[in-house]
């Protein structure tokens, strides 16, 4: 079992022939991901990385039966790429692109709500089901198969958590990088719900950061519905108010979106919250041992 992506997933790459698209598509193929082709408008009919290039997502689906798309196109065109996927019925859209204008995402998110497609990201590392399928830019070797699911707003912090979980002897089922922008396709709560319903996942690591109320929303859902232990971490305990900390969404605006407020709510909801990012893996192992 798995969440979102597995061996059966058929992936197309949007922005296939660009530098980023080429590099990461090669890495994904090396990991064993079933990349069936790519889309670069105007280069339809060519071959790239031994796979067909199409002008449109519609053509790509017709020829390959693709159901998952990963997006590497530049920020100015990324929202358009998301909407093209949604229009043509791609089930899962993973948008890696960083720096998409917020008003573009308002439109794209609204467009998505009229379709059945799920969006992960933007500004995210992607999704990986360890040992099966990598739809993202994460270093594959870190994600050894196992029983812990990860939900995270951040890229490298996800790798850090995965590395600790693997070294603690637990391994990863599926890791979902939901992205660090103010508007994203799949919020923390929905990603946690997916892992909660996944038989291959026995525990969940939930990593958030300052800004917004997604972690609080997820924590309240966990309190009511949790069947599995959850370990949490919130980055930005030392971040000052009103300053944007790298991610467009990581800015403390009100009282509720500080790290301290989020950690308090998460603890009240039964999540085992760690203060130090160095203790994520160790704590997950302890929690599972004491079940």
């Amino acid at each position, binding site marked *: 079992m798995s969440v979102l992506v597995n061996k059966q997933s058929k992936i197309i790459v949007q922005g296939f022939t660009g530098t980023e698209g080429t590099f990461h598509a090669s890495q994904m193929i090396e990991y064993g991901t079933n990349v069936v082709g790519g889309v670069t408008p105007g280069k339809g009919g060519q071959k790239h990385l031994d796979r067909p290039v199409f002008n449109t997502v519609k053509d790509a689906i017709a020829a390959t039966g693709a159901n998952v798309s990963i997006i590497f196109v530049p920020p100015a065109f990324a929202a358009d790429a998301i909407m093209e996927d949604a229009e043509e019925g791609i089930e899962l859209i993973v948008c890696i692109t960083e720096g998409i204008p917020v008003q573009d995402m308002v439109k794209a998110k609204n467009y998505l709500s009229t379709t059945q497609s799920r969006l992960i990201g933007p500004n995210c590392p992607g999704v990986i089901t360890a040992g099966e399928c990598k739809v993202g830019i994460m270093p594959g*070797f870190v994600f050894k198969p196992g029983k812990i699911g990860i939900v995270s707003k*951040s890229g*490298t912090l996800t790798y*850090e958590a995965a590395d*600790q979980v693997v070294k603690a002897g637990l391994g990863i089922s599926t890791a979902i990088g939901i992205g660090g922008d103010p508007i994203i396709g799949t919020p923390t709560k929905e990603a946690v719900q997916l892992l909660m319903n996944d038989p291959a996942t026995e525990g969940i690591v939930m990593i958030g950061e300052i800004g917004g109320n997604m972690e609080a929303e997820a924590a309240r859902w966990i309190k009511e519905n949790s069947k599995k232990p959850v370990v949490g*971490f919130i980055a930005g305990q*030392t971040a*000052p108010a009103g300053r944007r900390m790298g991610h467009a*969404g990581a800015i403390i605006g009100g009282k509720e979106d500080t790290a301290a407020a989020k950690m308090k709510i998460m603890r009240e909801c039964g999540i085992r919250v760690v203060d130090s990012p160095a203790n994520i893996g160790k704590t997950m192992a302890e929690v599972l041992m004491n079940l």
Partner: protein
Amino acid sequence: MNLHEYQAKGLLKKFNVPVQEGIAVDTPEGAAEAYKHLKVQFGNAFAVVKAQIHAGGRGKGLIKGTQQHGVAVGKNAEDIKKIAGNILSGILVTKQTGAEGKKVNKVLIAQDVYYDGPNPTKEYYLSVLMDRAKACNVIMYSTEGGMDIEEVAEKTPDKIFKEWVYPSLPLQPFQARKIAFNLGLSGQAFKNMVKFVTNLYSAYTELDCSMLEINPLFKTSDEKILAVDCKMKLDDNSLMRHPDLEALRDITEEDPTEVEAGSYNLNYVKLEGNVGCMVNGAGLAMATMDMIKLSGGEPANFLDVGGTANAQTVEAGFRIIMKDPKVKAILINIFGGIVRCDRVAQGVIDAYKNIGEIKIPIIVRLQGTNATEAKALIEKSGLKVESAILLSEAADLVNKAVRA
């Protein structure tokens, strides 16, 4: 990116949003000239001098070492010239600037809109911003204008109204009418408000604002609706499609070290602590700052080197962090996924050698692709650099450095 009041008002006028008119100048003589123009144009003997800085609270704020407020009314050309002289080149301290204040390079000489007329004047509040949870824009407004809106929200939350705008559509006429009705307007002022807020919302979306605040939003004694002040914040991600707006950037308002870091594609925010850090990825950078605090130090900065941790960026990072004399140690924390740790290690070694003697302890934690090779490289280099692979080891080394 923040804009000055005069820049924001200039943009609003292009969208037919009425504003308190004015002329921005940078000398006292220019101020007197501007006053004369306004007097001819509006026939009013009074005018307002408004300091142009990227911070609020200007009216109550004072120019350092004087009793001059950042916003003041003058009644003739001499008066305006004198006030402008007091403000220009002074340091304005408001409750938003902190004690160090901000240097004033420009003043806006603005028309006096509080003139007498048939009807009472009234101040309102109105802003447009993004509601993250609903993923759409929201117009927030109140009859309690001219004051601190956070205070209104706290004391009288029932006096704040919100109107969410359907994504992909302009503000609908029924919404604009609802806003004008809720503000208690009728007659000509009602019609003017409907037009004002409709055009303001277009300006917000067309200019890719991330925040647009009009406080006070003003009804004149002859029923006009005007933006008396305007705070406009643009979405940095959208500037690529607005080169004309990018040109409005005033870097004198920004921290010079942060501007320098930006030129190397480093994302840097200065903090007040004693342990500097250099990290790849924003989330891991914040987590590293938290870990420094838990290890007994205080983070001196946020610094995300992004995906390119090479010798050049690491050297720039070193130099930027070391400008801060309070820094007692530097922690480099790189999780090498796509970027290989041995290449980062070589970058650290080259940067260290280029700079020469570094007097404070450097702790390098490299994990991920080729982490072992990287550690060996650092140890073989003979430099005074402590090396770690696990995050917990790095935490211990920070603790040791802070206590030394």
